[in-house]
């Protein structure tokens, strides 16, 4: 009887096998998902790392390029180069007696180099602090009473 009952409620062997296989596959899928996620994040982090390294390198290269371009400009405007170019264009030294000076209203002459904003003495205005933060409690009470008494006095005809 008991045997019959067990047999009646027992899973078929193929069902058990299927259950184990499903469980195993689920495990494999979970592991694969976690591994995939890990790989993806790790790859992204590494890719960002490479990008940061590239940007760092770009920064260095750009800074060098800027310095080099500034220097090239210096080479092009160097006194001997300018003199040669001016001569090639047909310019010559001025004869002082040929000079004519004119007064240009408002012109204060050539200004010296300004390569960055000038630093100025920063002027700070006196900080405005409400008296509530500087007076003692007794002073506030006294001032309040004084104000109240003045108002009362004004009401008196």
């Amino acid at each position, binding site marked *: 009887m008991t045997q019959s009952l067990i047999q009646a409620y027992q899973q078929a062997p193929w069902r058990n096998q299927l259950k184990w296989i499903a469980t195993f596959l689920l495990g494999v899928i979970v592991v694969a998902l976690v591994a995939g996620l890990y790989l993806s994040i*790790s790859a992204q*982090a*590494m*890719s*960002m*790392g*490479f990008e*940061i*390294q590239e*940007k*760092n390198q770009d*920064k260095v*290269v750009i*800074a*060098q*390029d800027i*310095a*080099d371009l*500034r*220097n*090239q*400009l*210096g*080479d092009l*405007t*160097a*006194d*001997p180069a300018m003199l040669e170019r001016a001569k090639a264009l047909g310019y010559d030294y*001025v004869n*002082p007696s040929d*000079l004519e*000076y004119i*007064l240009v209203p408002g012109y204060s*002459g*050539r200004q*010296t*180099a*300004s*390569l*960055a*904003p*000038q*630093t100025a003495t920063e002027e700070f205005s006196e900080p405005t602090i409400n008296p509530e933060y500087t007076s003692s409690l007794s002073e506030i009470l006294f001032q309040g009473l004084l104000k109240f008494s003045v108002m009362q006095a004004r009401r008196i005809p």
Partner: protein
Amino acid sequence: MKSEPFVRFRFIAVSLSLIAALLVAQLVRIQVSANTRAMREDTRKTIEDGKRVLYPERGNIYDRWGHLLAGNKEMYQLGIDLRYVVSPVTIASTLASVAGMNYNDVYAKASTEYDANSAVYIDLRTTITPEQAQKLQTLQISLEKKAGKVQKDQEYPSLLGLVWTPILQRSYPEGSLASNLVGAYTFLDRDGNRDLGQGIYGVEAYYNDILAGQPVIVNYSLDPNKAQTLPNVPPGAGLILTIDIQIQAMVEKVLDESVAKTKSDSGTIVVLDPKTGEILAMTSTPRMDPNKYWDYQKTFHDGTETDRAVSQMYEPGSVFKVLTMATGMDTGTVTPDTVYLDRGTIEVGGITITNWDFLAHGPQTMEGCMQLSLNVCLAWVATQIGEKNFYAYLDKFGIGRMTNVDLSGEVDWPVLLPGQPGWTPFSLGANAYGQGVNVTPIQLASAISAVANHGEMMAPHILKAIVANGKQEARPLRSLGNPISAKTATDLTNMLAQSVESESYQNAHIDGYRIAGKTGTASISVGKLGYITNLTNASFVGWGPVEDPQFLVYVWLEKPKTNMWGSLVASPVFAEVVRQLVVLMNIPPDDVREKLKGQ
């Protein structure tokens, strides 16, 4: 009895399991093998966790208008990584043809045996241009392609092992122009052993620390998983100098021509703005090209020659009389109209002093004494002033002390004072006309600038502003005091302007401009041998326009051979400089200025 398919399944399962086990075993073996450990260690050393020093770009140097005097250009530093060298012959012959290097030197270095502890990398201490680097790269690629497959350890034409690293190299676009002032930076010592790179001479040396900036040390790894953004390294401070490159170029041209024409040993010219103490131009001969600073020994024989204006002492002679007369007038000892009877000699401290021409000039006002540059008269003025006052005024003028001009290599020589060993009563008489007292050109120019600036002496300086952290900060002007009153300064300036207008100063005349000035011809002392009679230091100091002095020019020619007199060799140099200076500084002639003032 088991069926046939099950046997096959088992066989396949066992086989696959064995293969899997073998794979795992192989993986473990690879991971723990000695070679792998060595490779891992090598990789770790290469890419991981190192401290890296980030050096800031060296600050630029500009003239007053923002014209670049010292910058940085992209270059490639050559080196040899001995681990990878295949063909020392190819490296040596290529560098000889592409970079002009010595074949034998390079070959010897490239043939050095690799030693992990002592010989890994050799810095060739040579830089090449980006174009040359491009040529090397093309050649390297083509050689490797041609080589194809070769046996291990077989030598074949290859540039492997040759390394070129991009660096910013100090560059001076103007070459030797203003090099006395700007100095140089030893850029070849920058990489490899960067601590040794430093500014030498001039501004580069004086402001080395602020030009260099602050290096930043970071923990750095090539492992991308540990990548981090590198911090910003602010470049070294940029310096804006007071000099005007056009004036500087003009002054150098005039000086070079004059030194050659007068066959002088050397020459120096200082151009100052007496109102501010700004150095508008300053030069001396010889000059070097700071782009090839390693050749400095071919140009300079000792340190005083790098910038004679601040580094070389000399007895100035009669230009010093300006200070003696200023003292005499300021103390009330004499006035411009005081008359002195010049008998051609005077005895001071038991020694007879004569005039430069050994003549007596009879009664002379102080103006006449200055115009004729009478030693006897000025020695008399000094004796009337008295030792105490005379030396007190020299001290006020800064004689015997450094000016503290912001250039490297400034020297000074203390003035011998009464009571000190070596001083005799005669010293007072000799000092009055600029003998027995040593100054540098900048010292004397600075002292005399007080006369040109209504009695106030401004500190001479070369730095106009500093550019750092995106801001430009102007250098404040500094007064060194008022050694004489404004009245004395004006009276003396007018007196010296009268002198320049006289016939004896015709070489210093500037048409259309009223200029004050004084010549100087100093004998040269040679140790115990005394003074050489035929060789002199010829000088001229002048400032103008007299009504509103905007420049002071000091000229010194050392041992001119064509003529020994300052009035004949130094005055024309002064005049030539001023003639061009007024144009470059936009200073109209006196009459035009007056007319424009009225508008």
